[in-house]
């Protein structure tokens, strides 16, 4: 398994532990990731607020770079995944728009062909038959007794036409992975809802409220931890958890993990190796399960 890795910006910035654990879990599974060092930020749906064509051009360029390497593209961020799929859909569905976009890319030596490579989230790769087999074969430390709540992130689920999950209103991809890793998946309503990160600067209270509702739902459903597929969700649920806690006054906390961290833990890596000591909400309580 060899892929072009679209890291996204936040995995190398505020949530560097995501990049770290991605490399470790790939190492442990024997997956080869070629980092796309010349790919630009996906725009996160924000650049397109300023200039939709610019955002599509930047993303078409990134997809073209993967096409040129003849490698499927893998994202480790739900937002990047959703945005790249949106660009793919915009450009593929309108031949004259495609031409327009390629005109912009031309001078830089890139050309978006479309339909040549797959754009997948890491969770989707792990969820393929090959991926699941790899997981089964390589698990060294089954996460027995770890009650794990998935938080998918809006952009891998909606719009459902662009989602790689079979039933985006009721996905099971992440929970299937949890089971293979030996953990116990916890199903709860909020796992497909919004963490509020996009409006953290605009409407803090609403943002924290949304994140808080999801956390309380996970906690009430008996989860030991929440596992996200998106570093922005991680920031909202982890870095801002003290604010959220102050708002809803429930006095409970729950550690938030990145999916590659969960995978790497089951492969035998230690929490420190995976940057889990960098989290705002301590993951110490999980140590006894990981012992």
């Amino acid at each position, binding site marked *: 398994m060899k892929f072009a890795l679209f890291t996204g910006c936040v995995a190398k910035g505020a949530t560097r532990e995501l990049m770290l654990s991605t490399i470790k879990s790939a190492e442990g599974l024997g997956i080869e990731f070629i980092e796309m060092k*010349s790919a630009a930020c996906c725009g996160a749906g924000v650049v397109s607020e300023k200039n939709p064509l610019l955002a599509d*051009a930047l993303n078409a360029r990134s997809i073209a770079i993967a096409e040129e390497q003849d490698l499927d593209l893998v994202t480790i961020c739900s937002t990047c995944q959703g945005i790249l799929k949106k660009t793919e859909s915009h450009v593929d569905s309108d031949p004259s728009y495609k031409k327009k976009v390629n005109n912009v890319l031309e001078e830089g030596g890139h050309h978006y062909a479309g339909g040549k490579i797959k754009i997948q989230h890491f969770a989707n790769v792990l969820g393929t038959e090959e991926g699941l087999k790899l997981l089964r074969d390589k698990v060294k430390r089954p996460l027995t007794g770890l009650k794990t709540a998935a938080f998918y992130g809006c952009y891998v689920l909606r719009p459902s036409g662009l989602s790689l999950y079979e039933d985006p209103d009721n996905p099971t991809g992440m929970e299937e992975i949890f089971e293979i890793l030996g953990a116990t998946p916890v199903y709860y309503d909020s796992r497909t809802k919004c963490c509020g990160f996009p409006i953290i600067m*605009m*409407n803090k209270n609403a943002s924290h409220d949304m994140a808080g509702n999801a956390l309380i739902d996970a906690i009430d459903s008996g989860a030991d931890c929440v596992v996200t597929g998106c570093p922005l969700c991680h920031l909202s649920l982890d870095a801002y958890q003290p604010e959220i806690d102050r708002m809803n006054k429930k006095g409970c906390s729950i550690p938030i993990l990145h999916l590659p961290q969960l995978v790497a833990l089951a492969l035998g890596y230690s929490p420190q190796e995976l940057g889990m000591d960098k989290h705002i909400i301590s993951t110490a309580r999980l140590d006894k399960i990981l012992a």
Partner: protein
Amino acid sequence: MIITFKIKRYNPEKQGEAYFEDFKLDVQEDLTLLDCMNEIKWTLDGSLTYRMSCRSAICGSCAVKANGHATLACQRQATHLVKGDTIVLEPLGNMKPIKDLAVDFEPFWEKINKVSPYLQPKQKAPEKERVQSPEQFSLIDDSSTCIMCGSCHSDCNVLEVDEDFLGPAALAKAQRFVQDSRDGKTLERVKNLSKPGGIWDCTHCGECVERCPKPARPFDRIKEIMTVALEQGVTNNNGARHALSFTKSVKSSGRLNENIIPVESVGFFNFRGLFDLLPVGLRMLFKGKNPPVFHKSIDEVEDVKRIYMELDE
């Protein structure tokens, strides 16, 4: 197939609490959810209350929550909605139930009213029609398909926690006029829509697009208003500053400068806003989570800059 309809009943005339009641029907291949609801009402329990009229997905009366998500009952085949052998029916979200599946739409109409949902023409009307090109028509084509069914409003994640948000239906309706070439109040409109509770409070979760039974796609309309607002120079708010800062950052290095963007979003002189950022900033600094101060560019960042220049950014 035999389907069990688990329907949320509520009649404040009879008792205070809502409860679920089961109805079993033998459903044939091409019965819509509304057909089933009618069958239940007309043959099993006449007191089941809900709204419906056209049954052809144009009047917008029959939106309900099926299996937790808003949908237009007449537009969906019952056999496609079944989970196991059950369909759970509840009234629309974010609206107060009156009885069973019928909800109070008054607050919904109030929000629509807030966006001045009528043409405010540029000039006095000519003798014949105002000229509008097919391209200009296409800008308002999608939003004009909205049937005001309330499905987007029901499932909006922001409305769930903040009732001051205008909501996807009102904002999509607003776009219908913001981008109508015949309307003369674009600047005024986007100024109003950029205030708290407006476009920048949308969390981009995509629920509204997912639930919309028509091609209205409210979130896409909200983004269009954002672009117009930025073009019109309405930038004195966090959302607009965020978009501008983000776009600028990607131009300069090909990636996000996570240290600068929060500061530029709240505004350099917004001491209150900057102060609010301190706790999480310090927290992250303490844990070693803060993004590196020396911000590296991507490889081939020149190509990105070139693209920006070519697109006049």
